[in-house]
């Protein structure tokens, strides 16, 4: 805890039901994004780059892969003497009934002992579901400057979409005067990003009270934040500028991948000062064969391209055979596309084979096709 006395807790228990087959065996934070990453690489790399050196990762749904993935803290440089990634699934405790995490706040409540042990002054609550780059140390500086009890990161959204979000109404000093969950008639367009900084001592009291409240959903947005506002605590908004995306559906996951194809995309994964770290794989660079064609593509190492790639994102070691065409699609690691196969507007899950001559998706389909099983040829 030497760096800035702030501990990060990442809520990574989400199932991501609207990602269907992609989250059948793995939790949403472990889903692939951007040619080589998993979603959780973003908050973890942000923590490492923001000088936060102890991170708790709260897992629940299908957590075997996620637990081992997150526990290897050296991937994000979180393995120095005072650093660490602590994977925290629900556990049985002495003198308490064993229960799953009942809500976002409950996940933290059940780990009060862990946080006490770390003894931080501030706790940063993050979600493991979002794609963005953010310097949390700046948010902490804002929190301190406002002498806040809690600070909530907010993102301006288009007014007509504001009713889909939790909206913060603030005064001219950024102090939050009201919080409305999915308001029908929004008064502001500042949406909560689900990123909170709390003074630990205060949050601890709130959580202890919340745990035994039979009427509570044990949720930050629904219970803790409204309760703090009721008690007239100092809640401040911290406005975030930049790329932020919730990739909760097949379409939004596809869109976020496609965003990387535009030149000068806002996320800029090539920024040497704010790298996103991930698993290191041992493969050769990607190889574009004598008959390969690439046109507007984002391609990772290990790929072997003998076909044609248009407007697509290819993860590690994807193989595209001669005559195959991949258009407007996302191909996850080790996907194999057979000779002459044609892919349109699809996400193809890890390791799936598309046989020679097969056709997947259509150029004018409204929705994105998710392929998670082998596609046989004609």
């Amino acid at each position: 805890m030497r760096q800035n006395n702030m501990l990060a807790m990442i809520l990574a228990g989400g199932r991501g039901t609207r990602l269907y087959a992609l989250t059948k065996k793995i939790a949403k934070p472990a889903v692939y994004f951007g040619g080589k990453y998993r979603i959780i690489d973003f908050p973890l790399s942000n923590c490492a780059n923001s000088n936060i050196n102890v991170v708790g990762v709260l897992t629940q749904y299908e957590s075997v892969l996620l637990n081992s993935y997150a526990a290897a803290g050296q991937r994000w440089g979180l393995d120095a003497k005072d650093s660490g990634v602590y994977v925290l699934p629900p556990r049985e405790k002495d003198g308490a009934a064993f229960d799953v995490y009942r809500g976002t706040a409950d996940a933290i409540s059940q780990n009060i002992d862990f946080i006490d042990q770390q003894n931080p002054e501030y706790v940063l609550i993050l979600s493991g579901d979002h794609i963005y780059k953010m310097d949390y140390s700046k948010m902490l500086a804002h929190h301190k400057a406002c002498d806040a009890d809690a600070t909530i990161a907010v993102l301006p959204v288009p007014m007509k979409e504001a009713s889909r979000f939790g909206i913060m109404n603030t005064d001219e000093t950024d102090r939050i005067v009201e919080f409305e969950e999915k308001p029908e008639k929004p008064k502001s367009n500042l949406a909560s990003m689900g990123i909170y900084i709390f003074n630990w001592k205060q949050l601890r009291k709130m959580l202890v009270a919340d745990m035994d409240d039979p009427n509570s959903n044990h949720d930050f947005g629904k219970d803790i934040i409204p309760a703090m506002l009721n008690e007239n605590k100092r809640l401040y908004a911290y406005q975030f500028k930049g790329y932020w995306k919730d990739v909760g559906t097949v379409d939004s996951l596809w869109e976020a991948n496609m965003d990387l194809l535009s030149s000068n995309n806002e996320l800029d994964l090539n920024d040497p000062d704010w790298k996103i770290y991930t698993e290191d794989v041992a493969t050769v660079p990607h190889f574009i064969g004598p008959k390969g064609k690439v046109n507007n593509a984002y391609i990772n190492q290990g790929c072997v391209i003998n076909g044609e790639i248009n407007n697509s994102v290819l993860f590690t070691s994807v193989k595209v055979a001669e005559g195959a065409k991949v258009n407007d699609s996302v191909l996850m690691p080790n996907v194999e596309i057979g000779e002459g196969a044609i892919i349109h507007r699809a996400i193809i899950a890890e390791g799936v084979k598309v046989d020679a001559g097969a056709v997947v998706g259509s150029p004018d389909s409204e929705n994105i096709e998710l392929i998670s099983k082998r596609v046989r040829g004609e």
Partner: protein
Amino acid sequence: MCNAFGIVNYEGPNVNVKGMEDYRPVSAFSFLGRYRLIDFPISNMSNSGVNHIKVFVKTNPRSLIEHLGTGRHYNINSKRGKLHILPAKNMDDVDFYNNDINSYMFNMQAIEDVNQPYVILAPAHMIYRQDFSNLLDAHIESGADITMLYQNVDNAKEAFINCDVLNLNKQKGVLSIEKNRGNSKSKTISLETYVMSKDLFISLVKKAANISSLYWFRDIVNEECSELDIRGVAHRGFVACVNDFKSYFNANIDLLDYDKAMDLFNSDWPIYTRTNDSCPTQYYSDVTVQNSMVSNGCIVEGDIANSVIGRGVVIKKGAVIKNSIILPGAIIGEDVHIENVVVDKKARIVRKKELIGHPDQPLYVKRNDKI
């Protein structure tokens, strides 16, 4: 686990890569976009279960030491294993004294302290894939004193010039070690890879040091051919030797033959390297890229053919790169046409719009150079 420790030796006076060697030792040369030559012997050793590896660093060691780091990326056990960096004995003024025997003597205590009874010596300028545990088993089974790896080649007139050649008898016994003067096509090229007991290694080093302060290890082995049982074992598969600028260029270009590349890079035999955490490579629209290896972190707006592109290279609009090796971080400016060129790290070619070398005499652009 393997009952041997490894030593990655440095190259002899027969290796001389003009230009690139001014900036780093041969073992730290960038190779095929994302590797350095040292990755090959170390990965071979690590994959063979050799857990204790000593690496000699000669001149300009900065890039090599940074690259090796703790050795964790080579899959060497961080507690039981060891990646040990040994300083070469270096007398800058009198280069001919800078032989490997002097360096072994200089580090003798560290070598004597090793527990493993066998040693595997391998150089970084010979690129190949080899299971050393099989080689060690063959060595022990044969009862030989020294086992040497060699390759049958049929291009010894053009390639492997000044490399060691094993003069073998019918039973693959080594009669002598000669030099390849390029006078015939077929040769048995020594891969400068030796297996022997630690005790024999130490006694040969000490003996060599006694005879002449100019001896290299190969000289003492050559002298002992009649006394000791020295045997050759043929390596099969891809081998490249980087002993001059041309061979460095060719070794990269050769691996654009994907089947050849897969012979060297087998999925059961990973070649490890240090990650740079670069993002995937971004290709813009209307680019033509053919028969090329491209590393991560590049931004490609121009055309590429038959080339190897290192990490984080930027290729601007209208640029054309043919038959070239672009080392990491280089920038190829708008409408620049380059052919048969090696562009060293972080060089920027912006103003000069045409750089065309001959395939037999590729051009070299210096590190950090601005053109």
